């Protein structure tokens, strides 16, 4: 009987008995209990990246996302999103994704269905940004926001590469302190857990990471390192600092004592997350594809909106649809970074002359 009622009432202003019941406070509890008993799971559309939630976030920023988000292609390869950053048609995107793509004609698709060739007007390596020319004036549709109101737990809404109906949005919270992300230095793959100091005459190697750069170069447990690149270092912290100041891929010279012998070895630095700790390795494996460059940004907002590396370059809005940032990196499955809009505007001002010259103005 009840079932019949609910289906017959579907067309009525009150959509179904279910919609009435959900206003009753106890109903979610009953629903929860019933589902638990069934061993059921929460429907995917009700999850934080599900369609129902996306609709609410769409109300906040769906239209502005469509008005300013573009897709960028190098040759036939989709390299990610871009955001129209000024009404005279400047588009900002993530530089490194375009850098690593096969060289080919750069094209911008959007806003809307328009497709056009584009070219690079300027780059900012410190922020990993590239500025492109849309070649026409366009109303980006949003207002500038600011990040002073951002705190842990503040909702943010990201533009994501959409389907045929254009870009869509997804939401999540601001999840950590806005800050600089330091460049990750290289490592040689040893643990310096023993003695150190001038009297000891160097820094003792207590463990050598399996198949790490140090092991490959012949470093052994118990060795005492006392110089890096010909300079004497007896302090553990200083030695780590010195090694870390080099990028992965750089070769350094390490001088060490083994019993009574002294030797100098050349070691090519590796990436910390590859060389060290099961934890880092495993975290990367659990994160799926991450951004080519995910460290070395002067200032980022951190959020939890689940994006892919190709959603980078897209816009980040607040709940009022104001632009607060440009997504710049998926660091792992939990941590996503966006460059604050105030920083982008400062860069644009800095590069104003370079950009107008590139445009032949």
């Amino acid at each position, binding site marked *: 009987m009840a079932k019949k009622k609910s289906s017959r009432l579907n067309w009525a202003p009150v959509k179904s008995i279910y919609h009435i019941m959900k206003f009753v406070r106890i109903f979610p509890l009953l629903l929860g209990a019933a589902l638990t008993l069934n061993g*059921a799971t929460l429907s995917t559309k009700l999850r934080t990246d599900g369609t129902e939630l996306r*609709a609410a976030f769409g109300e906040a920023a769906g239209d502005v996302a469509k008005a300013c988000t573009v897709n960028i292609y190098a040759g036939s390869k989709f390299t990610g999103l871009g955001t129209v950053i000024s009404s005279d048609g400047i588009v900002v995107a993530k530089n490194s994704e375009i850098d690593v793509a096969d060289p080919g004609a750069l094209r911008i698709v959007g806003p809307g269905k328009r497709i056009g060739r584009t070219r690079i007007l300027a780059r900012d390596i410190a922020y990993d940004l590239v500025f492109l020319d849309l070649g026409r004036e366009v109303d980006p549709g949003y207002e500038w926001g600011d990040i002073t109101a951002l705190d*842990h737990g503040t909702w943010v809404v990201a533009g994501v590469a959409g389907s045929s109906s254009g870009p869509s949005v997804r*939401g999540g919270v601001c999840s*950590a302190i806005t800050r600089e992300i330091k460049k990750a230095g290289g490592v040689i793959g040893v643990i310096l857990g023993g003695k150190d100091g001038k009297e000891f005459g160097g820094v003792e190697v207590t463990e050598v990471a399996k198949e790490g750069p140090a092991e490959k170069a012949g470093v052994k447990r118990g060795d005492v390192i006392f110089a890096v690149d010909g300079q004497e270092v007896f302090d553990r912290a200083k030695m780590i600092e010195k090694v870390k100041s080099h990028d992965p891929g750089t070769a350094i010279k390490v001088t060490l004592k083994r019993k009574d012998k002294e030797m100098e070895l050349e070691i090519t630095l590796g990436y910390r997350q590859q060389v060290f700790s099961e934890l880092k390795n495993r975290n990367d494996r659990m994160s799926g594809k991450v951004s080519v460059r995910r460290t070395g940004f002067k200032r980022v907002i*951190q959020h*939890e909106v689940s994006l892919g590396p190709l959603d980078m370059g897209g816009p980040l809005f607040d709940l009022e649809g104001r632009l607060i940032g440009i997504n710049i990196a998926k660091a792992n499955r939990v941590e996503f970074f966006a460059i604050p809009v105030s920083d982008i505007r400062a860069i644009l001002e800095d590069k104003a002359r370079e950009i107008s010259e590139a445009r032949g103005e």
Partner: protein
Amino acid sequence: MRMPKIIFTMAALLALLQPLHAVVPAWEKEAPETVADLLAIQKQVQKVLPKCMAATVTLQMGGSSGSGVVVNKEGLVLTAGHVSGQPGRAVKIILADGRELKGKALGMNGKTDSGLVQITDPPKDLPVIEYDKSKEELPGIGQWCIAVGNPGGLDKDRGAVVRVGRIISATKDTLRTDCMLLGGDSGGPLFDFNGVVIGIHSRISSRPDQNMHVAMPAFQEDWDTLINSKVIGGRIGGNPQPDRAFLGVFTEDNEKGALVLEVREDSPAAKAGIQKDDIIQKVDDNEIKGAEALTDEIRKMKPKAKVKVTLLRDGKEKVLEVELGAR
């Protein structure tokens, strides 16, 4: 005929229910429908968050790092069993404000992954938070929750990381949510919207919706064991038991057997080629009906024993020979 009457009844009902509608918070709706709902959720999260974050701590043991949450003034910390590990071992506790305290591991359950740590020099102003002491009751499906922890390990400039999500499923041992977790989060707290601890981050798979938390009844069930620094269910964690065999997989129950969620690096399972998402169905000739059955079966074996593991991979049966290791 009947229809108008029904509509009338419904309308009357709806009118009656209006005042109630007004008091239902946005987070108790099936889903937030408007920006106003989202703002109401945000307001509630930010109301409870400062206290939640203050009580969330980093735990350091040797070279590894995890998370935990302080639940009383005497310095008791709830964490994951695979974080606290061997009872008695030294743990450094780093508070949200950066202060470093001394402590030691108490007990753990290797099966449910519950664990406790005791701070041995608790300061007077130690931030603490309430935890759910239910023995039976579970969070409802769809209930909103807040995850705090240190994904990727301690980062002083970043601080703890916050995620907001919903309960996907719940049993007495395990909650599953869409709050994305990562290694380093382990042991960190899952809160409800009143800021009460309802779970402890435990494990993940590479699937984004596989974020598992120890449910609070699992802590209550073993409370005496945990507080008295005992170990039970030694399936994962730093729990050396030399004459017990070790396979090196973490599994969950599946209709067809034990579904592999994780394979430990360099473990006998990894060496034999067992992979994530394999479904283990037999060890030698003994049928494996689920995660527990697999643990029990391996527990009967001795290190270095050679066993045949029958599993399903992409729907096809495969038999692998594994030489078991020692825990």
